């Protein structure tokens, strides 16, 4: 087990810089999830930690030791790949044991270790099977087993759930989280799925275009997004963004409504409100418009409301008695659930 630190980490391919100085401290035993759209640099960062990509600038420290120039095998890490990278011609036992090839252990010790890992992952009876006799979830577990068997300081997961169907993904998500609670190793997990990030992480690192946008607990990034990108990326459906103008502590929306502005600002401001917080209930009236589409989800119904002039917001209504399509509705939100962003920079106003 160990801490992990990234200091001004930079990566360039040819002349294109893809990571622009990443700084991050991961505590011992912490479960950190990197999330962001494709091309944001999350996988590159992970591969640099693993030692599969060279570090262009800055440094990586694992357990307080700089590992920039160490071979992957000397970094005390293990990685689970998106396509699992389990060898089709080897049995599950050989696949898991492959990670122990270079370990200075006696053969019986290695066998015992493989059995132990298999027991933890509940696949003792699968040890003599070949990968093509396994289901997707079982293959995933073999890949995790191969990483676990080496008892590394840091586990690296590169989008390991994206090849699984939705139901299995939810199940594996839970299993990985349970596993982390049990073994307690430091984990860095990369995904593009914000639900995965929210449900699994101790802390989430949200990335975009090679920059970290925000680092925080799932609650922090959800309830206090640092900027409009984070606000829209985390949470589904995305946060509604309403253009407004601030002057003298009052925010005037383009729809005509006014709201008290707790932050100090003048000029154009973007007001953010999550669909969950916007509805027909109590609160400040924000927008009025016609319901264009209803999406029943069971306990509640999402309604798409045309606010005129091409603007559309998503709000939540009761699951049993949602307004009809075409109905004129007023959408309200509680003042504490409103988010304010500088319209020019996108940064949250405090």
């Amino acid at each position, binding site marked *: 087990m160990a801490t992990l630190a990234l200091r001004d980490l930079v990566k360039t391919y040819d002349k294109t810089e893809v990571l622009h100085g990443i700084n991050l401290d991961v505590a011992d035993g912490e479960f950190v999830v990197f999330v962001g759209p494709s091309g944001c640099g999350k996988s590159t960062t992970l591969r640099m930690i693993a030692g599969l990509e060279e570090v262009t600038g800055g440094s990586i420290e694992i357990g307080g030791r700089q590992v920039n120039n160490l071979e992957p095998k000397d970094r005390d890490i*293990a*990685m689970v790949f998106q396509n699992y990278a389990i060898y*089709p*011609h080897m049995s599950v036992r050989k696949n898991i044991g492959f990670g122990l090839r*270079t370990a200075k252990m006696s053969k019986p010790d290695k066998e015992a270790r493989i059995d132990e890992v298999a027991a933890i992952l509940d696949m003792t009876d699968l040890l003599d099977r070949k990968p093509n006799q396994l289901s997707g979830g079982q293959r995933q577990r073999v890949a995790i087993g*191969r990483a676990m068997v080496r008892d590394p300081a840091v586990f690296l997961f590169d989008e390991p759930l994206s090849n699984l169907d939705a139901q299995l993904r939810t199940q594996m998500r839970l299993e990985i989280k349970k596993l982390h609670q049990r073994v307690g190793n430091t984990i860095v997990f990369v995904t593009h799925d914000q639900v995965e990030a929210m449900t699994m992480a101790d802390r989430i690192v949200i990335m975009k275009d090679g920059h970290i946008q925000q680092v925080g607990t799932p609650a922090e990034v959800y309830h206090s997004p640092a900027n409009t990108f984070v606000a829209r990326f985390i949470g589904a459906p995305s946060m509604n963004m309403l253009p407004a103008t601030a002057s003298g502590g009052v925010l005037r929306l383009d729809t005509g409504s006014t709201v008290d502005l707790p932050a100090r600002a003048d000029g154009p401001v973007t007001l953010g409100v999550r669909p969950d917080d916007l509805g027909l209930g109590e609160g400040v009236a924000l927008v009025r418009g016609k319901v264009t589409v209803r999406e029943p989800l069971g306990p509640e119904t999402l309604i798409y409301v045309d606010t005129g002039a091409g603007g559309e917001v998503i709000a939540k209504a009761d699951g049993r008695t949602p307004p009809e399509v075409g109905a004129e509705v007023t959408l309200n939100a509680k003042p504490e659930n409103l988010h304010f962003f500088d319209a020019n920079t996108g940064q949250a106003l405090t």
Partner: protein
Amino acid sequence: MYRNLTIKQKQIVWAWAFLAIPVVFYSVIRFYPTGNAILISFQNWNLLGDRTWAGLDNYIKLFNDPVFWKVFANTFIYLLLGTPISLVISFVIAYHLDQLRFMHGFLRMLYFLPFMTSAVAMAWVWRWFYQPVPTGLFNNMLANLGIGQIEFLNSTTNALPAVLAPAVWAGLGFQIIIFMAGLRAIPKSYYEAARIDGVGWWTILWEITLPLLKPTIVFIVVFSSIGFLRIFDHVFNMTTNNPGGPLNATKPLVLMIYESAFTKFDMGYAAAQTVVLFLVLLVVSLLQLRILRDK
């Protein structure tokens, strides 16, 4: 009437409609001559006269012919030397070429070039390489180093390897391309996982690359074995003065068939040899597929 057929029956009608052309083609161009060759192997025929029934005479003659056994052995030497040598060389080249980025396409083209070259032209160039001083390239090089002359094509021991060398060389390009395609098909993450596990390149080669290349290796082994068992043009063109010589040292089965048929006009005897070659090819291919097949 067609309308009243079930979907299944319609499919069958269409399947046969499309199959008709290959069926006719194979029957006329492949199966009929094959059957005819087997028939002729039990007959005597000199191409012009009547065919007369010979029973097993041709096979008995073949069995008692010392030249046939020499040729039979030669054919297997071509196979047993040519296939493994070309397999190893082409793999080594493909393995390294695959990791090379600099001038990759150009080098691959260079390796592929001999495969596109006419076997006749190639055989003649190599024949020139093998000449004694002052013409031959190899002997000139040896002379410059102060090493004695080597009789490449005129010695009964050297001639077969000397003929085999250009045949191996000519086939390399094709095998390299196939190997490289096989290597490319192995997911990169397998190697990355191995790097993280810290195993050495030898382990990676033996336990990851080669097992995963098995389908490619099976294909190349079967393909090149068939090629070496049917070797003809290189031998014929490099030993034109005395085809298959010296003293039948380089003569493969196909060349013997050719001579029996078109210099001695003993079609029955040639056909018997052809049947033997056919059986050899069949047995060797089936054996290889069986041995190399996935368990």
